[in-house]
């Protein structure tokens, strides 16, 4: 046994190497686990009107908790009795301070099969307004859609939509330079094959907003989520930009 006198790594070197590699392995596992993202999910459809608790990974809103009651500064015509039939200005962008999301709005129509178009996928995907329905601020259910994620580019513009809570504010800037301010009423999750069309798209007595993205379990074979997350919000005021 003459080999291990300095020419080859000593026992101690091997031990240090083992310890170092163990540390690397642990760090890699921590990175993999903490880096795994999961879109916040509201309560399932069976429990309508109830939001799930917000996951701890979601940072608290920098803005103070908004009051669910209409803002005292509400413009008189906007809150209660907007001109019913008139078509209001088109939306330009949407902003949700509670989840740190701001996006310009694309124009979306219907696909040939009658389903709603969704924005194109991409690294900086945008939200879109379904122009076959009311404009945000008009009486009726205005609809905005955005992706929760994409296979190539990770989280989408509406990734955190399910973390919105009743009372959170959604601002929609419009072409006439005004902002329609909506307050979240509830966040729901429904299976796509039992989409609550009448509840989400039916007539409303006042100006409403629907924000829609995907949620629930992912069907890998169909490359599609099984559920839609729907945020229901009501116009509470309008203001200049």
């Amino acid at each position, binding site marked *: 046994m003459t080999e291990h006198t300095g020419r080859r790594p000593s026992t101690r070197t091997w031990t240090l190497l083992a310890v170092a590699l163990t540390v690397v392995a642990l760090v890699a596992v921590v990175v993999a686990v903490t880096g795994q993202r999961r879109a916040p999910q509201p309560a399932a459809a069976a429990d309508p009107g109830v939001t799930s608790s917000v996951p701890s990974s979601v940072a608290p809103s920098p803005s103070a908790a908004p009051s669910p009651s209409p803002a005292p500064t509400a413009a008189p015509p906007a809150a209660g009795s907007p001109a019913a039939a008139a078509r209001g200005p088109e939306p330009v962008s949407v902003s949700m301070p509670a989840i740190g999301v701001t996006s310009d709005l694309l124009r979306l129509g219907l696909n040939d099969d009658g389903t709603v178009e969704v924005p194109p996928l991409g690294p900086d995907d945008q939200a879109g307004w379904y122009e076959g329905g009311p404009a945000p601020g008009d009486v009726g259910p205005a609809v905005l859609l955005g992706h929760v994620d994409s296979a190539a580019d990770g989280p989408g513009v509406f990734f955190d939509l399910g973390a919105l809570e009743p009372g959170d504010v959604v601002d929609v800037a419009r072409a006439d330079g005004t902002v329609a301010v909506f307050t979240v009423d509830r966040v729901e999750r429904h299976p796509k094959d039992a989409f609550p069309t009448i509840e989400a798209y039916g007539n409303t007595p006042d100006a409403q907003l629907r924000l829609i993205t995907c949620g629930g379990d992912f069907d890998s074979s169909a490359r599609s989520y099984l559920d*839609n997350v729907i945020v229901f919000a009501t116009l509470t005021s309008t203001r200049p930009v």
Partner: protein
Amino acid sequence: MRKAYALPAVAITAAAFPLLSMTAALAHEGAHSYQATLGSVNASGVTGTGMVTLDGNTATVMIEATGLLAGSPHAQHLHIGAMGTCPTNDLADDADGDGFVSVTEAATYYGSIGTSLTTSGDTSSESGLAIDRFPTADDGSISYERTFEVSDDVHDAFEAGTAVLVLHGVDEDGSGAYDGDVMSDLDPTLPMEATAPAACGALTVAQMGAAPVGGAETGAGSTAGTENTAAIGVGALAAAGAVAAGAVAYRRRQADQA
């Protein structure tokens, strides 16, 4: 000879293509949604909402209604061709004084059957009393959705504002079944309770100009699977290396001690 035929054939084909694509585009852009708020007739207590999206003559009909006699079939139709309105909820429209606003009496307002909203098979007025193919309201509520073709008459009625959604079947004596001495004005073998209108709503243009069908494809899944596969790979390699190095160190130490 062949050439003589070929040219007109090409010309006809070329002329036909734009026409084909145009009709498809028109039919699609013509999608319109209509909504009806269902109010009670014959003091049934039934309320609900109906929504119809017409794309050409293709109709997607959705109905949500509650307060119906549970476990009994409820005929439901699109009525057309009259005033496009509904009878009252009391007996003000009971012209013959038999205690029911019958279909005949109500038809003054909402007209005759244009479409039978069955759960399967034929949807024409022929199926107006096909009681085995209408929803049975197992828990007193109906949630109906079906897409099918309607006739030109029905399509025209929507545009003219004379299409009315009507649900039939009312347990007026509270017995829990269709019964009683008054027989139906439509079929003398059926009790009046089985065919009398229970809920009615005129279909008017919805705020949502064209309601999309079904849900939205707003996710293509990356965060749903396992992300950070590179980090996991590095971790696995490092762990294997650590085990190997540890084994060598252990054997060295054994050898040193020997």
